[in-house]
């Protein structure tokens, strides 16, 4: 095995930093943090106009000549400066899915629109009565000639308030097994039948409930076959889970910060926090877990690079990566002690409240994209060959 992870983007980091210095408004990170809206329309337009959104994509669907590696370095630099560009995250996930399952017309229309920055697509899977059991969706789509009429409600439609479309999971047949009566659509959000209500979360992110009342879309907005939405969802979920909770890198950075803090901070008796053996052990366990998370995510990349679509590898990486990051957050708060509860607004918050924020933001990671309990069942079924327990 070759564990040599050369930074393929090393040659582009400096250019990416200069790009960010020149174009990134420091107010954007603060805007995302205070509003919980993780999409900046002005930045999105800029990235599209300069051709960065289209870098590396097939030219027949609007791909540009921009260097794809430099584009990736720029996105990483933007995220490192706490501008999360989640609108593009969801949109590119759908565009990737369309490469597998879209018609030529849909690829030109939606991928083209996405790369020009005109089309921003939110994910519309979860409903008030169905989250991890995503195939239990009740939002109805009923055929009416060449059109479909959609009625229902979605939960956690993140970034919908900044999106033009939603990738919508609907039920088209009620008399079939639940996985065989689903159909996917790309639905415009400016339809008068769509309403968007904000939901604020523990992690500080603003998400939404979205309501659909007699929304009409043409049949050309249907992605995949009628009642064949589940195979489309499976492709989209693979793209969603492959990140594996960031592969431990964010946790590893946080650990370095807290370790340095613990070495320079004294307790009442004058000893450094780090000199406490229980602190060392908790830090080490978290560091080891972060390395394991990185390797499980690396395995997902190996599968991709050999031409495969990672399934259970992605689920394993997500399960371990997110669960271990949460364990680390709990321990890091304990290690910091009483001041760990202070929010960023409090000037004496250790490390600018980085741990307090990570603790809150990390909670959702074991829930979205398939809860840990679902990941465990996927591992039980596919790695261990145990019987399926979910209907």
């Amino acid at each position, binding site marked *: 095995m070759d*564990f040599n992870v050369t930074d393929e983007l090393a040659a582009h980091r400096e250019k990416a930093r200069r790009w960010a210095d020149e174009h990134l408004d420091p107010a954007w990170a603060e805007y995302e943090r205070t509003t919980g809206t993780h999409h900046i329309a002005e930045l999105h337009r800029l990235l599209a106009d300069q051709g960065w959104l289209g870098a590396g994509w097939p030219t027949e669907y609007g791909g540009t000549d921009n260097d794809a590696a430099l584009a990736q370095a720029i996105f990483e630099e933007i995220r490192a400066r706490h501008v999360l560009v989640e609108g593009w995250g969801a949109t590119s996930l759908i565009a990737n899915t369309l490469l597998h399952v879209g018609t030529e017309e849909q690829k030109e229309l939606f991928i083209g629109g996405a790369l020009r920055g005109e089309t921003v697509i939110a994910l519309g899977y979860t409903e008030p009565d169905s989250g991890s059991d995503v195939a239990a969706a009740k939002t109805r789509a009923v055929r009416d000639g060449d059109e479909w009429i959609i009625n229902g409600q979605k939960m956690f439609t993140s970034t919908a308030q900044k999106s033009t479309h939603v990738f919508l999971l609907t039920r088209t047949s009620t008399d079939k097994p639940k996985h065989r009566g689903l159909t996917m659509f790309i639905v415009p959000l400016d339809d008068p039948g769509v309403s968007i209500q904000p939901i604020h979360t523990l992690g500080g992110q603003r998400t939404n409930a979205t309501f659909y009342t007699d929304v009409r879309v043409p049949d050309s907005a249907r992605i995949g076959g009628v009642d064949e939405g589940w195979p489309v969802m499976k492709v989209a979920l693979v793209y969603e889970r492959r990140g594996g909770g960031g592969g431990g890198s964010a946790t590893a950075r946080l650990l370095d910060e807290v370790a340095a803090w613990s070495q320079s901070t004294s307790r009442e008796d004058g000893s450094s926090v*780090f000199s406490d053996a229980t602190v060392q*052990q908790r830090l080490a366990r978290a560091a080891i877990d972060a390395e*394991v998370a990185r*390797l499980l995510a690396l395995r997902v990349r190996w599968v991709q690079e050999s031409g495969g679509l990672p399934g259970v590898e992605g689920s394993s990486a997500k399960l371990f990566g997110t669960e271990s990051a949460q364990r680390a957050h709990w321990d890091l708060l304990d290690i910091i002690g009483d001041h760990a509860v202070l929010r960023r607004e409090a000037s004496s918050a250790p490390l600018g409240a980085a741990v307090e924020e990570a603790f809150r933001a990390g909670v959702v990671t074991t829930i979205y994209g398939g809860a840990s309990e679902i990941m465990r*069942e996927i*591992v039980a079924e596919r790695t261990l060959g*145990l019987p399926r327990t979910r209907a």
Partner: protein
Amino acid sequence: MAPLEDLAVVSNVCGAHLASIPFVEAIVGGRLLAAVGAKELLEGVPDGTVLPTLFLHRAASKADRILVPAGSVAEVAIALCGSDLVAFKRTRANRPHCAALANLGAQPLAEWDLGDDRLERTVLATGEAATAAFERGLNEWRVLIAAALNGLRKTALDLGVNYIKNRKAFGRTLSEFQAIQHRLADVSVAGDGADLLTFEAAWAADTNQPNAARLASYAFSFSSRTAFMTCREALQFHGGYGVTLEYDIQLYFRRAKAWPLTLGDVSREEQRAAALTFCGTEV
């Protein structure tokens, strides 16, 4: 010399079958002798007629009685005594004075009395060269034991999975209960991670990566904890049969706890890992 990565594959298989040979000690001891150029002591080692091993703990004084892995079967044991790397050799005639001690994992453990003048004493290296050779050997031991524990835990997991697929309770097989599925899924994913971590540590040693010592410590700690947890869960799901000596799972359960204990408390190894990670050195 063979790459550590290849030896890790062999060690993994030894662990998977609980092979009754001290493969890791023989390999690490032999490599240590070769590294310091001890030609005479190496005689008989490559063909297996002479079995070397190593003391995992620094020998403080000559009078120390030290628990030695493979100590009841080895002819040569290498120890770091102060700043000297020393080989202690005994002949077949005086072997009984290092008789095996009954132990949890049924390993060939024995105490060696370094003050016994029947032991032939050879200084292999001194000063920094001695410490460096010993530390490298100990790190190889950590990686290869991690590999053995990974093989062990995979067999234990298979034993558990096979058992729950066949055993029925409450009108269905145990494999249909989510409480069991989820717990085995957790140890399965951790086991995948332990495999990757151990091969990364072997690769790091083979290619002289600057973080090789840290990764050896990680692989040893994580594989130790994962192997024991896997055996514990697999035994638990065997129910009453798990504690009968007829079922192999108890053998794996014993060895999973006993093997890492040869080095000592895993929590101390984790504290060492913290120092290697956050101080760049051992404290």
